[in-house]
């Protein structure tokens, strides 16, 4: 689905992303983790052709995304509020997005009915512009707009960050369902290790712009990641835990 070759991005002399080679196959569910400044969002933006890489390229279905238009028809993404037209009401925005994909209002309404549980009655017909919604609800609109497009590739940047626990739970189910039952390739970044290991089959760990670990999720993945992020002081207590468990 996605192939990255020699991708490099430099800001003010510092390399923020440096991925020599990365292959993401059709139907995979990728979890992207890493501390702040690891280059997750920058990588996302380069895959979406929003920033120009210093060198290298991103191929989507074998086609270079830079300057291309075809990937837009099967890729849905929500990185931040900058993806939403904030002076529209959620309905107007969703109809607009649906319209771009050739869906009429009735079709959009039908799809939205399926998202009613996810929206939890806080989005549709609330008499608010998107800019007046809370960050969590804006995220719901963004994710909802993504699902509306019935994408083959779904990219979400920290979708769990602002939403409430119930919605987190629902979103996880939606992501699993999209991946397992609809064959959607998902790329999700998150700071919550529990969420990513739960949802994703393959975890990419980034540090200073480099993918330092590429692991298939197994029962030990969570502890492996916790060990990495536990930097120093927690590692010792952690090993003790491990021994106690066994």
């Amino acid at each position, binding site marked *: 689905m996605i192939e990255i070759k020699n991708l490099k991005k430099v800001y003010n002399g510092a390399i923020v992303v440096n991925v020599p080679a990365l292959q993401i196959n059709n139907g995979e569910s990728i979890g992207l983790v890493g501390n702040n400044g690891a280059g997750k969002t920058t990588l996302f*933006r380069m895959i*979406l*052709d*929003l*920033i*120009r890489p210093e060198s290298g390229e991103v191929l989507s279905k074998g086609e270079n995304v830079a*300057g291309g*238009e075809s990937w*837009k*028809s099967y*890729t849905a*993404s929500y*990185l*931040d*509020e*900058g*993806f*939403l*037209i*904030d*002076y*529209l*009401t959620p*309905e*107007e925005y969703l109809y*607009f*997005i649906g*319209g*771009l*994909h050739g869906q009429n209002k009735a079709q959009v309404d039908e799809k939205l009915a399926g998202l009613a549980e996810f929206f939890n009655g806080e989005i549709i017909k609330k*008499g*608010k*512009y998107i800019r*007046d919604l809370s960050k969590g609800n804006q995220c719901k609109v963004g994710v909802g707009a993504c699902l509306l497009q019935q994408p083959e590739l779904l990219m979400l940047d920290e979708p769990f960050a602002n939403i409430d626990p119930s919605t987190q739970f629902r979103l996880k189910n939606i992501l699993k369902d999209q991946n397992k039952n609809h064959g959607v390739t998902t790329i999700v970044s998150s700071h919550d290790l529990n969420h990513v290991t739960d949802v994703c089959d393959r975890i990419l760990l980034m540090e200073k712009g480099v993918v330092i670990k590429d692991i298939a999720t197994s029962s030990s993945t969570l502890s492996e990641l916790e060990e990495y992020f536990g930097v120093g002081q927690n590692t010792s207590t952690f090993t003790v835990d491990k021994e106690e468990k066994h």
Partner: protein
Amino acid sequence: MITTFFNHELKSFWRSKNTGKSVAIKVVMGVLILILLLYVLAFGVFLDIILKKMFPAENLTVTFCGIILVYFLSDLLMRMQLQELPTLKVQPYLHLPVKRNSVVGYLALTSLLSFFNLWPIILFGPFILKVIVSAAGGGVAAVFMIAIIALAIFNNYLALYIKRKANLNGWIFLMAGGILALITCGDYLWHLYSFKSLSYLFFGNLILKPYLVALPLILAAGMFYINFYYLKGNLYLEELSSKKEAAKSSTEIPFLGRFGQVGDLVANEVKLILRNKRPRSALIMGLFFMFYGLIFYTNPKMGEGFKVFVGMFMTGIFIINYGQFMFSWQASHFDGILVSKVKFTDFLKAKYLLFTIVSTVAFILTTPYVYFGWRTVLIHFVMYLWNLGINTTIVLYFANRNYKRIDLSKGASFNWEGVGASQLLLSFPLILLPYLIYLPFKFLGYTDAGLAVLAVTGVVFIITRDFWIKKLEGDFYNKRYQIAEGFRNK
């Protein structure tokens, strides 16, 4: 504590995006403000001569005393419309162990840092120095100055108080506006009383009894404290903020439905304009420009050359006024546009369609100028074609070179956000090009031919629009990363 606040305030001014990052913009801004101040200053310095010309029969001091209150009445009206509330800036301090009195005091004091408070001093100061000092002595002049400053402060707090009240209840603003209108009508329409004589009553007596200066001082101090206590009692974010919540509804513009995806994009942009403060004021300003012709056409000295200019502005003001900041209006969701399935060709076509619709409406609105002859309407129509053909393309060409983000929620007055070199450069071809074509014909005596060439050029550009869209699209693909990055820079 308040000094720390002022320190922060200064930093926020110099570091804000409005002020502009580059030195060049700061210099241009400084020069523009200086020119504006100089104009007012010149007006102030020559006020005695102007007053003498206007009221040759009256004594100079009497006239001067008469106009002061009239000025402050109009000042209040202006403030109510233009002066911004110094509000949410206190948010970061509310949860800190800072005394409420200092926060409120800071809020109240910073509101004095407004240009509106400078005008009366620059305007009346020179006159007081030139005339009052020589006529009544330095003491009286000082008292005059104090009275004027006190009245400015009174106006400042009265306007802010009304605006704050109006935030909670929109009717208050209408009521205040109505009362001001009644007061004005009472003087100028119904002649129940005269502001001029009222003003003279006070300021004339001030010369004889300087202690009367206490009156404006008391008024100013009273208004300050009313404001102070009102703020102190209502120091909550929702009450400070300048937005009132009302249920928003989804709307559709059926007329645009027939244009398909391009129509959808135009509908979104129409909503952008109507639902955000700054683009809305750009549109409203455009409506005022419809009266532009009255200034020029009523003056017989202005020849037909001016009609070309005025006609272009009246039918194309929206293209110029709104278009100069494209695509900054959409800066906040530009990433979303780039990754969405919107083709840039459609994006551009939507801009052309929007310009066409608004310019057509503007042209229709200017048809009453037929009063000045059919030829006037003909010139307007020629310039309407010119606007649709050439100015739209010029504006969109410069839009590809505009990397500045605009915060839609801020008002338009004194807002420098998004202003850069591209707006300045843009104005040259906009203003010069039609004359480059028209003037040679005019000097040769073939004005009709000049107009015809303008019209034909416009039509040729409209017919070849697809070609220009292709060109603009190619240009955009080279610049889009830079544009998107600039827009991401908050």
